[in-house]
């Protein structure tokens, strides 16, 4: 019950941020440029189309009416039409969302699954060779440009060693019935195992690229969390009172140590959304990120705005989820 109240309180906190996000979008896209109509209509629009756009968007009306119309459009799900695809931006986003979500989920999930055990492992073996190796990987992983890493990985594991496909979501030619849009799920649901394995292969390189900074962050913060917990008085007391070591480490210390990584994971969700832009571009992954990358080059105004809003919302959701997870782990959080 307390948890539900907490959840709603946190949601309420995000509402003003959401509205401000929309306002920023309005400010950036409609107020700053000299002639937003031209940009919305695109460089190939005829004068009549331009005028139609101007009327539709109310850009000749006073500011507050413009903003109101803009808000109305947003809440009706109208994000404009993409100049590039000639489809409503909302439709483009929805169509491409599963690809990005699948990639992001696998990358993050993989890095959490691997990162937390590794973090605990090296924290308990401080200054061993494993610890130093890990530190090197963490520092490197956080410093590397994801697009460079993607290119390198493509080069060596894809081209040279031919272990993995270099782009795309699935081998053209494999028929997969689309149920949810998530290829892994769909292939399992339709018992299409060939598609399943092929999808996994295609996921590997981009997931590694997107996942390494996540992995590095999670290891770093888990290691830090465990080391911090080990210094605490409650560990000393438990030890002094004879608490068996496995229980101490895997039940108690782990929960204390996991707080910092959870916060980071919330931020990483935002990173996965953002980072997806370059990774999807490098691997020709048909997701929202790729859409954003193309619309940037094309100056597809509506698409860029749509993508910005989508990322902001995804980021807020990510932080919200992390806060929830935190409240589950730390009882003090709920009263805060």
């Amino acid at each position, binding site marked *: 019950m307390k948890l539900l109240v907490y959840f709603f309180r946190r949601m309420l906190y995000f509402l003003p941020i959401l509205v401000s996000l929309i306002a920023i979008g309005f400010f950036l896209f409609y107020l700053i440029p000299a002639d937003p109509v031209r940009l919305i209509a695109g460089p190939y629009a005829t004068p009549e189309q331009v005028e139609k756009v101007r009327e539709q968007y109310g850009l000749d009306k006073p500011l507050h009416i413009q903003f109101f119309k803009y808000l109305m459009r947003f809440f009706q799900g109208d994000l404009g039409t993409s100049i590039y695809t000639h489809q409503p931006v909302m439709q483009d986003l929805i169509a491409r969302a599963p690809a990005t979500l699948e990639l992001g989920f696998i990358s993050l999930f993989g890095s959490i699954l691997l990162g937390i055990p590794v973090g605990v492992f090296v924290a308990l073996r401080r200054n061993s060779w494993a610890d130093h190796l890990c530190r090197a990987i963490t*520092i490197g992983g956080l410093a590397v440009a994801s697009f460079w890493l993607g290119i390198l990985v493509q080069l060596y594991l894809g081209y040279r060693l031919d272990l993995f496909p270099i782009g795309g979501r699935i081998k053209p030619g494999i028929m997969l019935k689309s149920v949810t849009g998530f290829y892994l799920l769909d292939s399992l649901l339709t018992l299409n195992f060939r598609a399943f394995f092929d999808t996994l292969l295609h996921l590997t390189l981009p997931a590694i690229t997107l996942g390494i900074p996540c992995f590095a962050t999670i290891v770093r913060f888990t290691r830090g969390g465990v080391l911090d917990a080990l210094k605490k008085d409650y560990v000393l007391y438990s030890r002094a009172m004879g608490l068996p070591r496995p229980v101490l480490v895997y039940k108690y210390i782990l929960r204390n140590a996991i707080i910092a990584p959870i916060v980071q994971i919330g931020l990483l969700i*935002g990173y996965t959304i953002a980072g997806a832009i370059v990774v999807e571009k*490098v691997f020709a992954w048909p997701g929202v990120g790729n859409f954003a990358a193309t619309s940037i080059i094309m100056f597809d105004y509506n698409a860029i705005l749509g993508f910005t809003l989508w990322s902001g919302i995804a980021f807020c959701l990510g932080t919200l989820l992390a806060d929830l997870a935190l409240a589950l782990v730390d009882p003090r959080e709920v009263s805060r």
Partner: protein
Amino acid sequence: MITYLPWIRQFMRDRLAVFGFLIILFLVFVAIFAPSLAPTTSIYDVHLSERLQPPSSKHLCGTDNQGRDILSRVIYGTRITIVIAVIAIGASLFLGVPLGLISGYSQGWLSGLIQRVSDIFLAIPQLILAIAIAAVLKPSITTAILALSLTYWPWFSRLVYAQSRSLRISTFIEATQALGASTRRIIFLHVLPNVITPIIIRSTIGMGYTILTAATLGFLGVGAQPPSPEWGLALAEAREYLPKAWWFALFPGLAIFTVVIGFNMFGDGLRDVIDPRLRISGK
């Protein structure tokens, strides 16, 4: 300077941090002496007859798709990188620190407003916001710098806000006020010096992050424009010529990696020396 001697000595013991510092020095050195260090100064001249040559004694890093020597372009790229990073961080400081001081030290609606605004900026991934800003204006290095400054200042304002707020209610500031010191005097003499430490640490860590984001903007086409030798842009150009011209993609990326690692290691080492309490992964 003498008072910092014990800190400097402790810093020297951290090999990684010293290594990071050397990398930064090297970067600055290369940037300043680029014309002397680079094999050729004509980094914009096109030599189509020599395009896409692998690394050789003549071109240590090979040539790119327009026959330009990659090593020279990478060397000149250090100048761009430093300029972007320094100006972007500098501008963020210039914007963020005063805002943080105001919102932390004052009471009332202004303080809350500044906080809300920085919360909003922090709620959006920096890259996305930078892309949005850069896309609205004409893409160029200047736009990239502007976008970076406008998206990084909240980190500084939040830091300064936390510090100045906690100092404001601290007993020693109360005492100073009781003795009749003016607000301005308090801020400059007491609050600011305490705030400088976390600012310095965040600036160094922020440098690495900013360089990465700047390169990403260049890669996506909203930052540096051709024929600039900016590293991110070079990687974007290199993509088309894979897998054959691997050198084209390797060296600019290696430069980015080295520089960012340098700043990260230096920043970590600095933080461990100045304020180990901020350490999240203990050594």
